[in-house]
């Protein structure tokens, strides 16, 4: 008896363990760039624009080697390996997913920081409330690096960002 599968005329699902193409859930992404640092193939890019105050996280599925390192690194579960594999196309632009996020603006000096608004929110969520004087840290965390240094505050956000990354 022929054992041939009917694919592509009949759909086939990849097994649940399959590492398919990654996909970014834009509602969860905080633009921390952990995935960009983890990616061995440079399929993920972080492009900051301090003029416009935006950060783009770019995922090119056509460069992705599907090692799932991004999935492993992402603190919010925004980037996930899907089970999808039907991504052949004639146009490479179809392979690109971009998430554009706003960079946080320092309320003190008005310049853009090197983290997004969402990353800040996440950092504040992680911050141990009972451990220090929360309000004090919260006040300082939202400042840009220069202003914070000026205020000679210990780098709580950095510490929490390390946890994130």
């Amino acid at each position, binding site marked *: 008896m022929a054992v041939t599968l009917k694919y592509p005329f009949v759909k086939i699902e990849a097994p649940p363990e399959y590492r398919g193409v990654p996909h970014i859930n834009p509602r969860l992404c905080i633009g921390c760039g952990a995935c960009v640092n983890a990616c061995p193939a440079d399929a993920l890019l972080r492009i900051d624009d301090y003029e416009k105050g935006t950060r783009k996280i770019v995922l090119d599925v056509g460069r992705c080697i599907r*090692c799932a390192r991004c999935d492993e690194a992402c603190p919010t579960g925004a980037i996930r390996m899907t089970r999808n594999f039907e991504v052949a196309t004639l146009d490479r632009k179809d392979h690109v997913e971009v998430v554009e996020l706003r960079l946080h603006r320092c309320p003190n000096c008005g310049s853009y920081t090197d983290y997004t608004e969402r990353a800040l929110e996440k950092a504040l969520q992680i911050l141990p409330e009972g451990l220090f004087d929360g309000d004090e840290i919260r006040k300082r965390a939202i400042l840009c690096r220069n202003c914070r240094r000026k205020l000679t505050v210990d780098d709580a956000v950095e510490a929490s960002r390390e946890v994130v990354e």
Partner: protein
Amino acid sequence: MKEWARKITDEKVRERYVNEVIERFRDKIIRVERNADNQWMIEIRKEDLPEVIGYIINHPEWKETQLSTMVGADERPLRGKFSLIYWISINGASGDVFFGIKTYISEDDPKFPSVTPIHPGANWYEREVKDLLGLIPEGHPDPRRLVLPDDWPEGVYPLRKDFHYTDSPKREFTDETKYPYREPPKGTAVFPLGPYHVALDEPGHFRLYVKGEEIVDVDYRLFYQHRGIEKIGENRLTYDQVNFIAERICGICGTAHALAYAQAVEAAGGVEVPERAEYIRTVMAEIERLHSHLLNLGLACHDVGFDKGFMDAFRLREHVMWLAERLTGNRKTYGMVVIGGVRRDFLEYRRSMIEKVIRELREGFQKWADQTLSTKTFVKRCEGVGVLSYKDAKRWSSVGPWARGSGRDLDARRDHPFAAYKYLDFKVPVYKEGDVLARCLVRAEEILESIWIIEQALDEMPGGDILAEWKEIPPYQEAVGFTEAPRGEDVHYVMTGEGNRLYRWRIRASTYNNFPALPDAMRGNSVADAVLIIASMDPCYSCTERVQVVDARSGKVRVLTEKELTELSRKASRGV
């Protein structure tokens, strides 16, 4: 043998080897250092290279000594000099020792005496350091370009530290810069093979010098697939990321490479791997061997036009691929091995999946082997073809089934036990005929051995973590990692560096040691068999009714003694 017993005997044996070398070359040795459990680094002056290496490799009593790898490094930022290390291993289950014979070479006089005239196996290694580092082997019989593309300018050496990894200088691609092939011998015609030949699954150019259809001599130009992986690994990627490029050195035996790399770093950085991870690594390595050997046996059938055998082998193999996909998330490039352990665990349902698949595979494979070896035309094509003598296999430092088919008794899994192989029991099939059929029988037997290894590993798999936590790897530590890939021993050398990056990474895939021996196996054969012989270096044929006997008696391979097996396979090789 239990692990502790092996360790004690090993330690004594090792001392004997090391002491003998030290005694003999007392006045020539500058420094001796133990890098890892089984690795000694011996520093000598460059003038003494041929003598010391020749002594160890051609030692009449030491079994299956072998040039495992050779590393050239640009240590100018550290010591102002280049370095060369010849890694020589002792095999044949007679002691687990790696000698690293190291020497420094100054920039002003970048020459060193070539070892190739004494041991031809050094041929490629020395040409490679000439290409990539500009160190010139004096007295090398064949100093042509080996690795770099034809349009690469002279005098630019990509592995030097002052070369930026993304640079890609070019020179005009003209007839003059084309690779200088040897002049064909008198009265022969040139039969080019490749780079794009349907039956060679990778590009490489062969020139067969033929009389009629008989091959008189062979020349080749390879490295169409040179991708500068070492340089990328030393510059762009961090320790953890290198695993993934190591896996992509070869899409078929990627895990063996990733494992060799991880083990090298673990040895250099003193990372302890949890036992469970070692077992999982072993199972993955064996699953890879299963699919690789089935692939190779299938392709051998394809190369002689026996498509039924090809299709059936691939049909069997597909189940192994599906298994791998469910265990690791991908059919190949498993992405399992990382420094310190593995990335996915074998949950209970995955375990039972493996058991089911290998049980079915054993049955299916026996049927396949039966059918293929009863195909007369197929056996006729393989017998007595592409004979590689033991002498040639030894002098080229060949490894894997290619060497074991020619009577070399070496297998890194047994001789230098890594991962969980030290706890497991298995045999290393060796055949003396040296022809394509012998290589095939080695591979076929190894499939059964692999199934047996997996069964044991699943039975004995311990609990605990699957990944060790490691924070920092101390810089400038050297070590080699080695695995037995389906094609033979893979050796990775690492020198750790700063900033979470490697300082030097040297990959030696098994084919690197096997390929130079190919012309010896091809001479005197027919053009029609050229592709088959090339394929048999890597893939092979079938096995025989012996397999059936094995199973019919007991269901376990263990019961047959080696002698019985050898006799049975002799029968098989004499004709069906």
